[in-house]
């Protein structure tokens, strides 16, 4: 397989800060591990970016929001207008309210956080996931190689009850903060995966919340993965429906942020997760599966209370 020539992918970085745009370019060209051969251009101004986009095809454009001669959204709109398969991400100071607002407005679900220490591993992951969404799936991708990942297969309500005990014991043993709330969030994630993912042919929910289920069909079963390595603790909840859409997630996030969703019995889970974990990734393969990945870091630099990114990969 070694003699296969990797496909070319072109990336444009737009930021008025030289250190940042050239830093990313340097990293992607020299240190980033990719299945593709990368070509990375940079632009300092909107006008310059738009000129480059007009004359070149870019697979991915990463742009700052505030540029000296305009805003980054116009750049990203320009890319989409030229090629709807182009992917885009923002690089900006991260704030969840802004994330939701921007995502709803522009459909950009990936934000690279401007923060120090800058997390190049995270940048690598975002770039890889954007260039090939397939790589976004699977908890193992986010944990150290050879970490032990445990799997619980949920086939019935009884399995849900059992999984609570298993996860509780795991959380206790791992010594995480906010153990009870984390467990609540995980439980909401699991029940949502069952009651949301299983639909009748007309799209209505097959099971009602609270209803005991003796046996899920094999294509309705939900998988929970959990594991830890030296730096992190990770969870993944995977359903086989893929019925959760990015806009639905944003709806619930916004509703809960505003406080309106206080008494909502579902949807709150996503927001709780976001508050409690350091990284929240939602991978959606429509009609096939939805995967919610939660990562908690032990390293203080990566578990900043000000930087808890959400990434949604939908393809």
């Amino acid at each position: 397989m070694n003699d296969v020539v990797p496909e070319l992918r072109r990336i444009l970085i737009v930021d008025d800060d030289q250190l940042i745009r050239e830093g990313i370019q340097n990293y992607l060209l020299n240190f980033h591990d990719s299945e593709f051969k990368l070509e990375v251009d940079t632009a300092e101004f909107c006008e310059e970016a738009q000129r480059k986009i007009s004359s070149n095809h870019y697979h991915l454009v990463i742009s700052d929001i505030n540029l000296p001669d305009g805003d980054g959204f116009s750049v990203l709109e320009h890319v989409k207008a030229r090629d709807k398969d182009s992917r885009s991400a923002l690089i900006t100071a991260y704030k969840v309210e802004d994330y939701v607002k921007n995502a709803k407005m522009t459909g950009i679900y990936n934000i690279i956080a401007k923060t120090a220490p800058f997390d190049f591993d995270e940048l690598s992951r975002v770039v890889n996931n954007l260039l090939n969404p397939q790589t976004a799936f699977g908890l193992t991708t986010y944990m150290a190689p050879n970490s032990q990942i445990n799997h619980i297969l949920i086939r019935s309500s009884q399995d849900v009850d059992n999984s609570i005990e298993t996860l509780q014991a795991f959380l206790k043993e791992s010594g995480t903060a906010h153990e009870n709330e984390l467990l609540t969030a995980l439980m909401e994630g699991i029940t949502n995966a069952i009651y949301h993912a299983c639909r009748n042919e007309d799209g209505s929910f097959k099971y009602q919340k609270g209803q005991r289920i003796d046996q899920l069909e094999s294509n309705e079963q939900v998988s929970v993965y959990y594991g830890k390595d030296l730096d992190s603790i990770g969870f993944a909840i995977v359903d086989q429906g893929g019925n959760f859409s990015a806009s639905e997630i944003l709806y619930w996030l916004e509703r809960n942020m505003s406080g309106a969703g206080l008494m909502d019995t579902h949807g709150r889970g996503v927001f709780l997760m976001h508050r409690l974990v350091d990284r929240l990734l939602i991978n959606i393969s429509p009609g096939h599966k939805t995967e919610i990945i939660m990562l908690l870091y032990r390293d203080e630099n990566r578990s900043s209370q000000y930087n808890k990114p959400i990434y949604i990969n939908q393809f």
Partner: protein
Amino acid sequence: MNSLQPSVLEMLVDFMPSGLILLEAEKKQILRFNPRAYEILGLDHELHLQSLHDHLPIYLSPLITLLKTEKKDIQRGELVLHLPSRDEESTLGFNLKHITEETGSTLVLFIFSDISKVIKDQLMVEKIKDELHQSKKLASLGTLVAGVAHELNNPLTGISMSLSLISMQLGRLTQKIQPLPAEGMLTEVTKSVESLLSELEKIKTANSKASTLVGDLLSYAKPTQLCLQPVSVQTFLTEVIQALHGHPSFSRMEIIIEGHTNAWIRCDRVKLEQVLYNILKNSSDATHGTGKVRIFYSQDTDEAQPDFINIHIQDNGPGIDRTLLNRIFDPFFTTKGHEGVGLGLSISYRTVEQHGGLLSVESPPGLGAEHCIRLPIYVESSSEATRYE
């Protein structure tokens, strides 16, 4: 005056809105004790008073002492009494005059009224003014701080990127030169690279520190929205203290919680926990980690605002200097020298404010610091809320 009938004077004395006591100075004989005086002092109207030497209730002793003074000049002043009919101390405003009669005997005229409410209102007005001033000051600081912090974030991120890239490049360089045979050269180069890397680490640490500060500033200036959940005050406090107990700053602290009301609040637990942490961390620092903290909570006694709960956090440290009290919530105000940047309490103030409450601090002389977190009580459908316990 002499045109007035004595009976009219009598009536004036009986109906005046102030209390009046007239004494014969030498024998302390009571000549007049008008109805209003009985009323204000909480005495039974049936009680027939002859002289100050009568068995007047003990709580009036400050008044008796005052009336017995020999000072002849007019006095005005305030007298604080603890009347049994009231929970709080009462303040009397008075005029005191010694009148020498033609016969040579001296009379003491004491006219007074209860000014407790006026004083309380005044204090309240001052407190509100202070709070308003405080929040205005913080709001304008917030705008400035947010701008500066945002601008600083870009270069800090860029510097961090460059530092990481240099480290990575140096790492690669070391790997490349490892297989080279020139021994002496190799050790020298390796040593240089190692020292460069250790210098880089220092800059990285400083860079991260600056970035954390920027994060603190942004969170102070533009706090993120709250994720509100109902929780009983008792449960919340107990869980927070349990969680903090494992923390090195608190492992040797004695923290007790007292309170009986079963009130619920709606709060962002992560953020409110941070508030408690910040306050308790100060208590721990003030007592070298070995102090005692009493946390007690109760529903507000003010009838006008029954829907609030006050959580008091009282430590046995040296307290806070009176002159520093009104600066304690200012950003960058710290008494910890290089140990702190002085944002903990400012952020806490903001957080409690976001919850619709108020964070305040008192430090009675000779006692420790006492913080009070005042929060609205959550009343709607507590049964619904129980589900999230």
